[in-house]
């Protein structure tokens, strides 16, 4: 009764509000055409999107969560990259 394995795809949808494609979930489909159709049926039943990307899950290279400390360390100490690091006199108002 075992069922053969069907490839896994990651689904990205661009919503109406003009934002970038955003990951919404995954699904199984034999090929990219079926993956797109299934993505429409599963993830856009209420007009959630204007564009869909499907990407084979095994094509994604991900950072290792156990190394996130080292990975993101360079940004940790650079508070001068944020606008609030800089003092602007109150008289100047909003900047």
């Amino acid at each position: 009764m075992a069922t053969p394995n069907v490839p896994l795809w990651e689904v990205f949808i661009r919503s109406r509000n003009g934002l970038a494609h955003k990951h919404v979930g995954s699904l199984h489909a034999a090929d990219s055409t079926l993956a797109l159709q299934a993505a429409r049926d599963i993830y856009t039943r209420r007009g959630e999107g204007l564009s869909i990307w499907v990407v084979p899950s095994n094509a994604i290279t991900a950072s290792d969560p156990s190394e996130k400390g080292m990975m993101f360390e360079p940004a940790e100490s650079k508070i001068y990259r944020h606008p609030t690091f800089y003092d602007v006199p109150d008289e100047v108002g909003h900047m």
Partner: protein
Amino acid sequence: MYTQALNSSDGDDRGVEDVARASQFQARIDADERIEPNDWMPAAYRKTLTRQISQHAHSEIVGMLPEGNWITRAPSLRRKAALLAKVQDECGHGLYLYAAAETLGTSREELVDGMLSGKAKYSSIFNYPTLTWADIGTIGWLVDGAAIMNQIPLCRCSYGPYARAMIRVCKEESFHQRQGFEIMVTLCRGTAEQKAMAQNALDRWWWPVLMMFGPPDQVSQHSDTSTKWKIKRFSNDELRQKFIDATVPQAEFLGLTIPDPGTKQNENGNWVHSPIDWDEFKQVLAGNGPCNRDRLAARRKAHDEGAWVREAAMAYAEKRKSRQLAQAAE
């Protein structure tokens, strides 16, 4: 829609785990951090969640059957379109949940085969028959209503993929409950026969719906670990109470009678109920409910009859892939 509190946690093998990692893990949970698929987690956490999420997914899929029964017999085009959309949503919910369960390392095929072989459980409520059109209204009103009570706290569950799936599910679920209640309102404002049909459906569904929340707190000894892991945020009895308190006034609005003479308000304003027949619940879970065999047979039939489609789609994908490779080699 319908996770049921029949999930017990496996607390047993926790002592064997790396103690330092386990305490780090608990610290993350306590700090309300989300656990993600590739993060370290205790084996028992993985096992508990795999079982709970896949049972939840099976419930969505099996849950399509009792309602699907009425799609071709809906009393109007409006009702038919709404019911069809609702059943499609249940399918979608099942698929979000399977995808979330798979991130814990069990394949979709194994999960589905577990349900088809009868090894994995699904919500007991779907082993009851839908005898009249009023059952469709009652399912939306009560079964989906109970499911929403159960599912809203799951949007804050510690496991990221499950919580995210539940957010999507909950957004869609509210339409289900409202369409059910609308059917009930229409029947209750209709002829005497229609109203009697609504009362009859409530009579049959009330107790099974109360059972959806799972055994009473004093006998569900496994909730502790799930609570500690923030998989479960409210106890079975707390959720059941919330549901009854919300539902009794709705029944009053409809002019229907809760089929329990013990239904009365206590001094705190909570509605109390008579004891629940937990033997019936156990029987249904053990496979002896009115429709257990029908439900599994229908799922197996659909799975077997769809086999050639899955095989053909895979064969076509393989053929196209090899053709592309051959063209690239030229």
